[in-house]
């Protein structure tokens, strides 16, 4: 037979004939392929978007909370004294009365309805300043702006309602004001009416008894220790946690926080496509047969111990944002003794023993003792791993927390 004919027949046999053995090596091959490439910048955008979302939720929650019960705080007045009746204020505000007004200014203090022209004294006998007195006589729900114009000229306390009462000590009364309508313009000699700024910590030290409101500057306390718990929500990372948190204020807005948490990470997923299997963490080299493995039904629970230091910023009295690294150590695994999550069509993902992550958190203070928080965590192990290792399971989740501040230190 001619060589060319022989070669031609051979080629045709290989082209047309089917193989006696068919293999489906896709599963094995897919396990050897690297995970889907994700642009690193995309990950950062996701973190930023998540933080933004959490912040937005917190602010929205705060807004709803205020709508439902609390009145907004007046600017210039720290705390909720604006809602108090005079007797209570005078009792609780003893510490903030600074000096006596004399002369004409003694008569200068007045208000619309019951404005006395004599110097005001609280129950302890101390004379009240104009600002303190005015606040004390503010009806519930009204909002005051107190503006100190100039010490050498005129001290004005402007209350944003529509009537004006002029102090009798200095000039005539322009009109009689009905009750609960307030705009007092207090003009006085500066040496007669000292208007004293009230430091928030002073108010915090003097909580208003029976007011039901939180101390104005709970957050300004130097340290606070809380115990809490929460739920994690995330693909393959749903579970719960118990945590102990210590916070220390570094200033009016900045604080540091440390949390130790015990986390349960439930892998018993609703989807039957997940399986837990024993798998070598190292990718087989090209040409090397991949590690043999046993695949088990998807049911495996993992327990982690977490240390989460963070630094935060106190936006206002009720909302704080914080961020920091998160170090988690797997301390036990119940159920199947698996080390990797296997999903058909995807790389096996190693369940990390030591899991590094990043957290962003928004805290919302409900009462002095109770606060809620929303925490976002993203695992960072895959950014640090060697290229020849299989990807780690990214333990990314959103955690909703509820905490009880059982120790509020100074």
């Amino acid at each position, binding site marked *: *037979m001619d*060589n060319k*004919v*022989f*070669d031609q*027949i*051979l*080629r045709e*046999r*290989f082209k047309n*004939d*089917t*193989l*006696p*053995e*068919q*293999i489906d*090596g*896709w599963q*094995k*091959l*897919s396990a*050897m*392929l*690297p*995970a*889907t*490439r994700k642009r690193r910048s995309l990950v950062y955008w996701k973190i930023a978007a998540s933080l933004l979302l959490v912040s937005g939720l917190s602010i929205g929650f705060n807004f709803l909370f205020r709508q439902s019960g609390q009145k907004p705080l007046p600017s210039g007045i720290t705390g909720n004294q604006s809602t108090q009746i005079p007797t209570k204020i005078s009792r609780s505000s003893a510490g903030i009365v600074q000096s006596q007004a004399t002369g004409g200014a003694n008569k200068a203090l007045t208000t619309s309805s019951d404005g006395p022209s004599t110097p005001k004294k609280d129950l302890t006998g101390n004379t009240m300043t104009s600002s303190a007195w005015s606040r004390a006589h503010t009806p519930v729900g009204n909002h005051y702006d107190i503006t100190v114009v100039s010490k050498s000229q005129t001290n004005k306390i402007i209350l944003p309602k529509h009537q004006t009462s002029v102090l009798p000590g200095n000039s005539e009364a322009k009109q009689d004001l009905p009750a609960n309508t307030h705009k007092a313009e207090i003009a006085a000699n500066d040496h007669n009416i000292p208007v004293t700024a009230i430091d928030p910590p002073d108010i915090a030290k003097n909580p208003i008894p029976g007011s039901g409101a939180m101390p104005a500057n709970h957050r300004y306390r130097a340290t606070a220790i809380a115990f809490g718990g929460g739920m994690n929500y995330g693909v393959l990372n749903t579970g719960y946690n118990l945590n102990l948190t210590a916070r220390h204020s570094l200033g009016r807005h900045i604080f540091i926080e440390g949390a130790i948490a015990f986390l349960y990470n439930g892998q018993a997923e609703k989807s039957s496509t997940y399986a837990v299997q024993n798998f070598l963490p190292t990718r087989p080299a*090209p*040409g090397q*047969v991949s590690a043999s493995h046993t695949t088990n039904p998807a049911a495996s629970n993992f327990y982690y111990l977490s240390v989460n230091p963070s630094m935060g910023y106190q936006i206002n009295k009720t909302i704080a944002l914080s961020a920091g690294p998160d170090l988690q150590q797997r301390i036990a695994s119940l159920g199947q003794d698996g080390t990797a999550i296997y999903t058909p*069509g*995807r790389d096996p993902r190693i369940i990390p023993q030591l899991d590094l992550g990043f957290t962003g958190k928004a805290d919302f203070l409900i009462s002095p003792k109770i606060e809620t928080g929303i925490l976002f965590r993203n695992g960072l192990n895959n950014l640090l791993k060697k290229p020849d290792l299989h990807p780690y399971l990214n333990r990314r989740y959103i955690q909703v927390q509820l905490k009880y501040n059982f120790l509020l230190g100074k």
Partner: protein
Amino acid sequence: MPEFSELEIIDGCCAGNRTYQEFLYRQYHTEFLKVCMRYAQDFQDAEQLLQDGFLKIFHNIQKFERKGSFEGWMRKIMVNTCLDHLKSKSFKDKRQLAFISDLPEFTGHPCDATALQKIAFDNLVAIIQSLPPTSKAVFNLFVFEGFSHKEIAKELNISEGTSQWHVNNARKNLQQKIMEQNKPTEESVRNYGQ
């Protein structure tokens, strides 16, 4: 499974999308397995070569310039994977290969076309797999991949004459073995006589 255009598959594989990778694998794995079978020692060897070849394709698919044939580009990677395997030190050590000078020269009668068409495909594959590695590589490159002797010489770092000798020797070897396979057994002759 949904149908994808070649461009979609390439883009999807470039992005590391498993769906497209799986589609590509399933579309070409039979054809490329046949390629690997010709160079391999046995089926398991061929399976491993196929995996290695696909791994290289997926790792290097971003380097495909989208000018020539995509299938041709993949096929070249697959053949190179097989040749690398044959050239690898571990393979030579395992086989304890002796190259050209130690190979026997076949002097058997050429087979006819009918014998070649009659032989079972798995037997034909087994006969090709039984060829000495270098002869197998040269014969496959010349007959199936369309390489010239000059290209083979360059690829395998041998002379053109050596390449020609390997092709001829492999051909004779194959024909002899095909004839042996088709030789009627004593039992079949006895049965035929009855």
